[in-house]
């Protein structure tokens, strides 16, 4: 499972990296005469409602998806890990403040909160990243806090304190590393989540703005032509499904790998 997922993700990443340089068509270039044309040898995925090459747009959209996934996941994983570790290790008021913030954010459906945030801040790629990070760190913080509460009682953590190590050193060297496997699994699953969320926001017109191609906006563009030109939605839809599936496979595979009960 891990390898299937990893292969999908690798192929997609390579496509995003190299694809736009290789395709002969500009994703923004319109050939209005050929609008809605189906797949052909020149245009493998066909053309959209404005006569733009869909393959070129899917490849360009992959870049957006990876950009969003990587940024959101790395920032929220780091922030969530640090905040969760601090809450779990020091307890007291710090823990109360951080844990209540987590509770409040978890009480909202994440995507709804992101929609509200972007609606207030205005639709743009930057605001999408911001909104998804605001809801993203919570999961990591909760996981890491739980792990740190456990690790705090480990004898080697006590031993490090008895050695005279300060709180930050103990946290960094002995406590946080115990949470890394959990965070890595969560990050792989988080990539899938961030990609779907970005697509959803863009689909609603709250994300990446035209003419920049994003899989979500492409789905939205194809909506009116679902019956007469299904290839407009089929290819970006497939791309989203495949990449999300890939990341989920990677996440599940890593989880199995990190689970000592499975060989």
């Amino acid at each position, binding site marked *: 499972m891990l390898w299937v997922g990893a292969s999908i993700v690798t192929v997609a990443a390579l496509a995003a990296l190299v694809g736009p340089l290789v395709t002969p068509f500009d994703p923004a270039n319109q050939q209005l005469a050929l609008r809605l044309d189906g797949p052909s040898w020149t245009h493998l995925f066909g053309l959209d409602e404005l006569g733009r090459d869909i393959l070129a747009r899917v490849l360009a959209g992959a870049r957006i998806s990876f950009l969003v996934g990587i940024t959101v996941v790395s920032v929220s994983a780091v922030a969530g890990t640090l905040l969760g570790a601090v809450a779990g290790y020091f307890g007291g008021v710090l823990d109360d403040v951080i844990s209540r913030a987590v509770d409040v954010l978890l009480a909202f459906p994440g995507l709804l909160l992101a929609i509200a945030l972007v609606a207030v801040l205005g639709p743009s790629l930057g605001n999408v990243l911001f909104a998804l990070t605001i809801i993203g760190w919570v999961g990591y913080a909760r996981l890491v806090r739980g792990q740190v509460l456990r690790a705090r009682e480990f004898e*080697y953590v006590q031993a490090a304190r008895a050695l005279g190590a300060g709180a930050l050193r103990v946290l960094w060297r002995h406590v946080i*590393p115990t949470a890394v496997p959990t965070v890595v699994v969560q990050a792989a699953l988080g990539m899938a989540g961030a990609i779907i969320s970005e697509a959803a926001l863009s689909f609603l017109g709250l994300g990446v703005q035209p003419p920049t191609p994003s899989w979500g906006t492409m789905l939205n563009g194809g909506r009116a032509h679902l019956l007469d030109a299904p290839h407009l939605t089929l290819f970006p839809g497939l791309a989203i499904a495949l990449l999300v599936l890939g990341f989920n496979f990677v996440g599940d595979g890593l989880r199995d790998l990190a689970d000592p009960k499975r060989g």
Partner: protein
Amino acid sequence: MLEVSGLTTVFDLASGPAAAVDDVSFEVRAGETLGLVGESGSGKSVTALSIMRLVQPPGRIAGGRVRFKGRELLTLSERDIRAIRGAEIALIFQEPMTALNPVFTIGDQIAEALLVHGKATRREAASKVVELLEAVRIPDAAARARDYPHQLSGGMRQRVLIAMAIACKPSLVIADEPTTALDVTIQAEMLDLLREMKAAFNLSLLLITHDLGVIAETADRVAVMYAGRIVEHGPVRAIFRDPQHPYTRGLLRSMPGAADRGRLRAIDGTVPVLGAFPPGCAFHPRCPDRFEPCSTTPPSELRVGDAHAARCYLNDPSQVASRASRGSDHASPTTGRQSRTDGAR
């Protein structure tokens, strides 16, 4: 060297605060080994953690004084106590399996002790680590330093813990059940090593154990702890030859190869759990010699010999006299049951 007086550490349990360490006083003199004996749950480990100010919530130090080389440890700033932990007072933990971090090499972990206190630069640390491993008799030290804890046997790991403890040349080492997790042959080696390190580095040792055999072999003086209190203390010979507290006597009788060579005798009953310590003398529900005052007021410390003291009314002539005048009622079923209900309360 170390002077503990009136140390009280309470745990804030749901049922209210409970003293795991209650008005404990003792001293460890320069160069000596003090054995702190007691069953599990008697407060030995909490005493050790309290001295180093490592008690974690819901536990807290509620009172008393801990003087170490003339400094009061309980009022030091966090920064100052950290400078003492590991550098001046080192703690050896019970479980060599779990007291080492599985993801770092043992060399790394010994070096950490040096680096934390700035006793070596990263480069110097490597050679010091090898010296320390050699000092605790680990063969092929340079290669072993690159091993992870799981690659070593229990005895080797315990040696590593000792190496970590002596890394900064502390003057006091607190060893919390250093031999409990090891099998018997290795226990003896470990005690030899501790004695050797003590001589070589001029250490004082606070040896915490439930094993009177270990005490007999290693300690100069003994303090016996029960339910958070020190019930008897004195020189090892006096404690073993002439124990004054019924609990100490019970412990000695339950030791294999003990003086009377008969069947092993267990102490009746079980150790009370924290939060439900009986009133009066906490040992009274299990005590074969209990009489009236035992279940109400805890006895104070009474001198019973040269540097030997016990907390038991049997050593108080006035109490014993009044008991004699009332007639022997201590073993009557009513008193027994009554004291037990008292205990449950």
